């Protein structure tokens, strides 16, 4: 029993309360937000080290024993997700403070941002499906508020789609939970594998597909992705970065959990996932190529890239899962950086529309580098972190002889590069447009936050060996049977 592992789930809530109480002083709110996230970052590092030593750590809320009480569990997968998520939350908060806008205009930004952190942390640390539902609700309700903060017409319209889709997913989630509880008598993830044994295999598969569908909506996989490119680009930049970089990945995380818990050897569902993965990659990247605005292009990429993670999961091998985990970790950083850079371009030029921005490389060479590195990384150009992730995935795919998927993922990489080139050619190359707005200064905090994330993603590429080894150990904990039978 290690009570402190629940701390990341409750500490941000306490900070959110403090942030509400000091609402009149934006400076105090900033100190609380930055201080809390820094403390959480320390906790996450400690968690990363200790889970590697202990495999799995648990604590029971209120000291109530397992099936009755709520279990908090931390394993390597939770730890790695938590560390990346919190690091990203911290960087984006610095960016948002530098940007001002919604952050300085609205008293609610900091408290709601912190409850979002609490929800995400709780989702990564829960060992109980019902508590996962609660965590999803906490993070979704916060995201509804953040998405519509500012109250512009486009935001409210996009927010409505988002809320309706999310509520639909939540209701399906809740109903599936009810059915599962009726069938097995438990919603505790540790108890489920044994409890599912008693069920008919077909019924087991139905449950697996139900939950994968629910989490698939949140992860925006094909064909449940249509809401994402519509709603995300309308939020304030910093918020879009968090949503596209992280929130869909919480859905992928939940898919990994449920698949490894109740269907680690269900190859039929695995094949379904592979088909879905291929379609998600292809449709997403086609969508991206057809767009004309930076944030919209990037939003379609967010869909496309989810396909890669589902690809790793669908292989149902330790190598595939390890690659998926590595991919998620590096992708969260890269994607967030791209959105932040997109925001910087918008800030500097006044628009994110490719027809109206030109020659940014001439006027802002540093910004060009900040965009180029993560963009190439997203496409998977060596030696950047995206290459490492894709290499691991393709390697795992070759091991499992999933030639079609390997081919599709490589082709999609090239198309990703193509659409990144579109932003590059559209916004950075060419003669600078002669409008006065092009000389607007960029706040240091925004640039520094983006720069740090770029450095982190380079760091991931440099430390790819140890990180992959860690992800592999995480995958072995998740798939103990497959791990022992592998050559």
């Amino acid at each position, binding site marked *: 029993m290690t009570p402190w592992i629940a701390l990341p789930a*409750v500490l941000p*809530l*306490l900070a959110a*309360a*403090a942030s509400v*109480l000091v609402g009149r002083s934006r400076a105090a709110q900033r100190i609380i937000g930055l201080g809390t996230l820094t403390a959480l970052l320390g906790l996450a590092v400690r968690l990363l080290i200790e889970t590697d030593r202990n495999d799995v750590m648990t*604590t*029971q*809320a209120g*000291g109530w024993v397992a099936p009755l009480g709520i279990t908090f569990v931390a394993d390597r997968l939770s730890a790695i997700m938590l560390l990346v998520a919190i690091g990203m939350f911290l960087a984006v908060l610095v960016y948002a403070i530098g940007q001002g806008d919604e952050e300085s205009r609205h008293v609610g930004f900091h408290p709601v941002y912190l409850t979002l952190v609490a929800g995400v942390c709780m989702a990564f640390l829960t060992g109980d499906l019902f508590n996962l539902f609660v965590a999803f609700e906490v993070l979704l309700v916060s995201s509804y508020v953040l998405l519509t903060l500012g109250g512009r017409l486009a935001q409210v319209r996009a927010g409505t789609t988002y809320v309706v889709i999310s509520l639909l997913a939540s209701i399906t989630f809740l109903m599936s939970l009810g059915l599962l509880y009726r069938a097995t008598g438990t919603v505790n993830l540790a108890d489920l594998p044994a409890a599912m044994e008693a069920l008919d295999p077909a019924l087991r598969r139905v449950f697996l597909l139900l939950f994968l569908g629910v989490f698939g909506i949140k992860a925006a996989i094909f064909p449940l992705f249509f809401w994402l490119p519509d709603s995300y680009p309308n939020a304030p930049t910093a918020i879009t970065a968090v949503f596209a970089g992280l929130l869909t990945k919480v859905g992928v995380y939940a898919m990994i959990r449920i698949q490894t818990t109740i269907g680690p050897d269900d190859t039929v569902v695995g094949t379904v996932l592979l088909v879905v993965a291929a379609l998600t990659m292809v449709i997403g990247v086609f969508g991206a190529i057809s767009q004309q605005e930076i944030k919209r292009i990037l939003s379609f990429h967010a869909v496309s890239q989810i396909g890669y993670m589902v690809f790793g999961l669908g292989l149902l091998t330790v190598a595939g899962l390890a690659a998926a985990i590595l991919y998620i970790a590096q992708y969260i950083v890269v994607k967030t950086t791209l959105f932040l850079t997109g925001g910087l371009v918008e800030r500097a030029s006044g628009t994110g529309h490719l027809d109206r921005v030109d020659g940014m490389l001439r006027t802002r060479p540093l910004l060009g580098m900040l965009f180029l590195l993560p963009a190439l990384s997203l496409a998977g150009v060596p030696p950047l972190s995206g290459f490492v992730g894709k290499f691991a995935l393709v390697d795992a795919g070759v091991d499992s002889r999933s030639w079609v998927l390997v081919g599709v993922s490589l082709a999609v990489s090239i198309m990703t590069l193509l659409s990144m080139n579109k932003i590059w050619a559209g916004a950075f190359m060419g003669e600078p447009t002669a409008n006065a707005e092009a000389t607007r200064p960029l706040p240091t905090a925004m640039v520094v936050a983006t720069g740090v994330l770029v450095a982190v993603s380079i760091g991931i590429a440099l430390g790819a060996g140890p990180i992959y080894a860690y992800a592999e150990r995480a995958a072995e904990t998740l798939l103990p049977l497959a791990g022992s039978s592998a050559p």
Partner: protein
Amino acid sequence: MKRSVIVDVTARLILPSALLFALHLLLSGHDRPGGGFVGGLVAGATIALIFVAGGMEDVRSVVPVRPWTILGGGLAVAASVATVPILLGNPVMDNWKFYVDLPLLGEAKISSALVFDIGVAAVVIGTIFMVFEAFGDEEPPEYRGEVRQGPGSGQHPEVGS
């Protein structure tokens, strides 16, 4: 705003019993149906009642504290009950209770879960109050003109406080 005698009197009659019922739900919540959330909802419903009878002015005069203070304070109390046990090395939300002999009422159980429930109730009340602050004060300009004079008086009196 035009006041109705019937609504006014009914509100005044219902108010004490509704609050008492809210308190009952809050206190009994630990072992029986009830709890901070429903208790808070019933208490919040009385805010709606005051609003219907006398508008936002009445609500503000009856509840002296600002809504975000109630909300933040409640969340702080609830989150503290969850967090403090961890800092002491116990599981999150660890419950701590003792029994007291109250005059007239007999033995009563006091637990930290009750404190948590009080926090939850405050969050609910604060939220309901906030909803009325946000949406309840929009009177059409022609009515507003009767009450307050001058074009600049449409400003929300509490903005910035």
